[in-house]
C-alpha cells in the first residue's frame, strides 16, 4: 500500500451528498463496524451500546438465524446449530476443516468449500458470514440513518484467493457494496496513521480471542508489502481463561464437572482476567449448579505466573516471522497491538521486551482494524477532505501459478506484486491434434502442485488440429485491486479464438448470489422487493452522480449526438428510480453503464494526457 499525493484537488462532494461508508472487521471471535464521522473514525455500537458482535450464528428450526450475544448464550445447549469461528471455514475444503479436530458440526462436502448441515438446512460458511455482516449492515444503517453506499471488509494478510473470494461473496450476499477488501494488518497500520510515514517496517501483533497472528509489513516508496506472516491458530485470550479456570479447579478441589460448570468457571476467569489488566487483584463470586457458592480470587502476579507459557508461545511465531522477513527485532520501526488479549500488561511487557520499544496501544485493540477500514472506506467512497487525497497500494500475499508437466508449478505472478496486476504466459500442446488443454491454477510458494492450494481448474476447448508444439496458448492472469484473480486462456495462432474466463471455484456466480439473497429474504421475512428497490435506487443515484460529475468536467469529449444519447440513458434511470419496479431500475442502470463505457475510456485518456502534458517537453520520450 502506498501514500500518493494526487496533484489535483479531489472532487469532494458537498456535506449533504456525503456517501455513507463503513469499515467492517469480520473476525474469528467477534466482528464490528466503524465509520468516519466529523473527521474521526468511530465504532458503531449496537442498541445496547456494545461495540462488538460475537461472530456466532445459531440457526433455528424455522430457518431464522440468531446472531451475536443471543447465539453465544445458546451455544452450549445447541452446539450443532450454533456456528462459532466460521471464519476458519471460509474457502476451505473438508480436508482443511479436519485439521481443526473434533467439531460439533455435521459437515457436508460441497464442491469447493465445506458446508454445514443445520436444522435450518445446509449452510455454507459464506452464508453464515453473511448473517453476521447483515447484522452489522443493519446496525450501520440505523446508526447513520441511510443506505450504506459501500464497505471495506478486512481479511487476514495470509488469506488466499479462495478465502478472499468467499469473504467478498459473503459481503455481497449481505447486500453490501464491497469498495475494497483490505488486509487486517494494513488496516491497523492505517488506523495509527503509519501510512503517512514514507518508509518503515512495522510489526502487527494480533492476539485475539482464539487466534494469534503476527504480520511484518514494510512501507517503501509508498507501498505496503507483507514481508512475512506467522501465527498460531490455537492461541488466544480463551487459553488464558482456561489456565485460570484450571488453577481454581485445583485450588478448590473441584471435579472436572460437566460443560455448564466449566462455562461458569471460564466466564468468571474472563471477568477476573479483564479486571487484572487494571487492578492488582480481583475476585468474583460464583454459584455452581448444585448450589455450592465459591469465592474466587486472583492476584495479577498469579495470573502472570499461570500464563507465562502462553505469552512465550506467541513469541515463537513472532521470531519466525522476523526470520522470514530477514529482520532483527530492533529493525522494526513500530509495533501495533491488535486484539483484546493484548490489553494484558504481561503481553505488552513481553512485546516491549522482545522488540526493545514500547508498542503502539493508544487505540482500542479490539477496534483498531475496523477503525482503519473505516478510514479507507471513507476515502474510497469519495468523501475526501482537502489534503486527504491519498492512495493506498497493496500487493498479493501469495504467488499465483499454473500446473505444468510433472506436477510442477510455473509461477505466473510472484508474491508481493503490486495490484492490480496482469501477466500472461504461453504454453503449447504436447500431442498432435490435441483439441483441449487442461488448465490448473494454484496459489502458494512451493515448487510442487501438491504443496500449493488449488484455486481453479478449467479446460480450453476447440483448439484446431495442429502438430504438437505448434499451438500457442496464452493464459492470462488478472488480479484486481481486491487481490482477486480471474484467468483467461486463448489460442493465438488460429483465426478461431477460443477463450474462457474463470473465477476460482470457491467463488459464487452472480446467479448464486441472487438465489441466496432471495432465500435469505424469504427467511428473514423482509419485504424483498422493497429492499431490492432501495438498493437499486442507491445504485442508480450513485451512477447518475458519477456520470453527471463526469459530464460537468469532461463533457466536451462527447459529440452532440453522443451526449444526447447519454442524457437519454440518464433520464431513463431517473424515470425508473421514481417508479417502484426494482428490475426496471436495474436494467436502466446497466444500460447507462454500457452507454457510458466509451466516455469513461476517453476521460481516462485525458487524465493521462494531462499527466503527460504537465511535464517539460524535453522530458517526454522521443
Amino acid at each position, binding site marked *: 500500500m502506498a501514500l500518493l499525493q494526487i496533484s489535483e484537488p479531489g472532487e469532494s462532494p458537498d456535506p449533504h451528498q456525503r456517501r455513507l461508508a463503513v469499515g467492517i472487521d469480520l473476525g474469528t471471535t467477534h466482528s464490528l463496524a466503524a465509520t468516519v464521522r466529523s473527521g474521526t473514525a468511530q465504532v458503531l455500537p449496537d442498541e445496547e451500546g456494545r461495540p462488538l458482535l460475537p461472530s456466532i450464528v445459531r440457526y433455528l428450526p424455522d430457518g431464522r438465524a440468531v446472531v451475536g450475544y443471543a447465539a453465544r448464550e445458546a451455544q452450549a445447549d445447541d452446539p450443532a446449530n450454533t456456528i462459532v469461528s466460521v471464519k476458519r471455514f471460509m474457502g476451505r475444503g473438508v480436508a482443511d476443516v479436519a485439521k481443526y479436530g473434533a467439531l460439533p458440526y455435521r459437515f457436508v462436502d460441497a464442491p469447493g468449500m465445506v458446508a454445514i448441515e443445520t436444522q435450518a438446512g445446509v449452510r455454507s460458511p459464506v452464508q453464515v458470514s453473511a448473517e453476521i455482516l447483515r447484522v452489522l449492515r443493519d446496525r450501520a444503517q440505523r446508526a447513520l440513518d441511510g443506505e450504506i453506499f459501500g464497505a471495506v471488509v478486512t481479511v487476514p494478510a495470509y488469506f488466499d484467493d479462495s478465502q478472499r473470494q468467499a469473504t467478498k461473496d459473503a459481503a455481497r450476499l449481505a447486500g453490501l457494496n464491497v469498495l475494497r477488501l483490505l488486509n487486517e494488518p494494513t488496516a491497523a497500520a492505517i488506523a495509527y496513521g503509519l501510512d503517512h510515514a514514507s518508509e518503515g517496517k512495522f510489526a502487527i501483533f494480533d492476539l485475539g480471542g482464539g487466534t494469534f497472528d503476527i504480520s511484518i509489513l514494510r512501507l517503501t516508496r509508498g507501498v505496503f508489502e507483507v514481508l512475512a506472516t506467522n501465527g498460531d491458530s490455537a492461541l488466544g485470550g480463551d487459553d488464558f481463561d482456561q489456565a485460570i479456570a484450571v488453577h481454581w479447579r485445583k485450588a478448590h478441589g473441584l471435579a472436572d464437572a460437566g460443560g455448564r460448570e466449566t462455562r461458569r468457571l471460564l466466564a468468571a476467569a474472563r471477568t477476573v482476567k479483564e479486571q487484572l489488566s487494571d487492578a492488582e487483584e480481583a475476585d468474583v463470586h460464583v454459584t455452581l449448579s448444585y448450589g455450592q457458592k465459591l469465592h474466587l480470587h486472583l492476584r495479577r502476579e498469579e495470573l502472570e505466573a499461570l500464563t507465562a507459557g502462553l505469552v512465550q508461545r506467541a513469541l515463537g511465531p513472532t521470531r519466525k516471522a522476523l526470520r522470514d522477513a530477514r529482520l532483527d527485532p530492533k529493525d522494526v520501526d513500530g509495533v501495533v497491538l491488535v486484539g483484546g488479549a493484548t490489553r494484558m500488561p504481561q503481553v505488552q511487557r513481553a512485546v516491549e521486551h522482545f522488540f526493545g520499544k514500547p508498542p503502539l496501544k493508544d487505540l482500542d485493540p479490539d477496534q483498531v482494524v475496523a477503525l482503519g477500514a473505516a478510514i479507507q472506506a471513507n476515502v474510497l467512497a469519495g468523501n475526501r477532505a482537502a489534503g486527504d487525497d491519498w492512495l493506498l497500494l497493496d500487493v498479493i500475499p501469495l504467488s499465483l501459478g499454473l500446473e505444468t508437466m510433472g506436477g510442477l508449478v510455473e509461477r505466473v505472478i510472484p508474491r508481493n506484486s503490486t495490484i492490480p496486476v496482469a501477466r500472461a504466459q504461453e504454453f503449447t500442446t504436447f500431442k498432435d491434434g490435441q483439441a483441449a488443454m487442461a488448465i490448473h491454477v494454484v496459489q502458494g510458494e512451493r515448487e510442487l502442485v501438491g504443496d500449493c492450494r488449488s484455486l481453479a481448474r478449467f479446460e480450453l476447448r476447440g483448439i484446431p488440429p495442429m502438430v504438437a508444439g505448434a499451438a500457442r496458448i496464452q493464459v492470462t492472469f488478472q488480479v484486481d485491486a481486491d487481490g482477486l484473480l480471474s484467468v483467461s486462456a486463448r489460442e493465438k495462432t488460429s483465426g478461431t479464438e477460443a477463450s474462457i474466463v474463470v473465477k476460482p471455484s470457491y467463488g459464487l456466480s452472480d446467479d448464486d448470489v441472487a438465489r441466496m439473497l432471495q432465500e435469505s429474504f424469504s427467511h428473514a421475512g423482509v419485504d424483498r422487493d422493497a429492499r431490492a428497490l432501495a438498493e437499486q435506487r442507491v445504485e442508480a443515484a450513485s451512477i447518475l452522480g458519477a456520470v453527471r460529475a463526469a459530464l460537468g468536467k469532461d463533457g466536451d469529449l462527447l459529440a452532440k449526438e453522443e451526449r444526447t444519447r447519454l442524457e437519454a440513458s440518464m433520464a431513463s434511470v431517473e424515470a425508473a428510480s421514481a417508479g417502484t419496479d426494482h428490475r426496471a431500475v436495474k436494467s436502466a442502470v446497466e444500460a447507462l453503464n454500457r452507454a457510458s463505457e466509451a466516455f469513461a475510456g476517453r476521460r481516462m485518456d485525458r487524465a493521462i494526457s494531462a499527466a*503527460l502534458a504537465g511535464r517539460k517537453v524535453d522530458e517526454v520520450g522521443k
Partner: protein
Amino acid sequence: MTPDFAHNHFELLGLPVAFAVDPARLESRYRELQGRVHPDRFAAGSEAERRVAMQWATRANEAYRTLRDPLARARYLLQLRGFDTDEESNTSMPPDFLMQQMEWREAAADATRTHDVEALRRLEAELTRERRDMLERLERALDASHYDAGSSLVRKLRFLEKLEQEIDDALSP
C-alpha cells in the same frame, strides 16, 4: 498526444526512451499516473469507470515494474528496438565468459558444501562488482545503439543474477 495501450512504458511514464532512468523521477511519474488511474480513485464511480481504471492501473504497475529493474528495462528497450534477448533458448556465450561462469559456479558449490560463509560473502561481493561493471557497459552499448552487444550483456547479467540469488539463498537458509 493521446495515450493508449500502444504507448510504450517510457512514454506512458513520460520518460525518454533510453536505458538511463533517474529512479526518483521514475517513481514520482509512476505515483502521479497511478494517482490518476488507480481503481481507488473510481471506487465510487460507474462500473465502466472502474473497469477502465483497473486496466490502466495494471498497465501503470507493469510499466513501473519493468522500468524500475535495470535488467528488465534493458530487455524491454531491446525488444522495442526489435531485438529479442532470447534468454531461455539462446544460451551461447563467449568461451571466456563460460570459463568464468564455471569457476564461479564451482566456488559457490564448494563454499555452500563446506558452509564457508566468508567465501560466499567474498564471492557475492565479486559478483556485485562484476554486475555493476556490466550494467555500465550495457548502458554504453544501448546508448550507442549496439543492440547485439546489449543482448549478449543482458544474457550474461541474467546468469549473474541467478547465481547471486543462489548464493543469497545459501547465506540465509
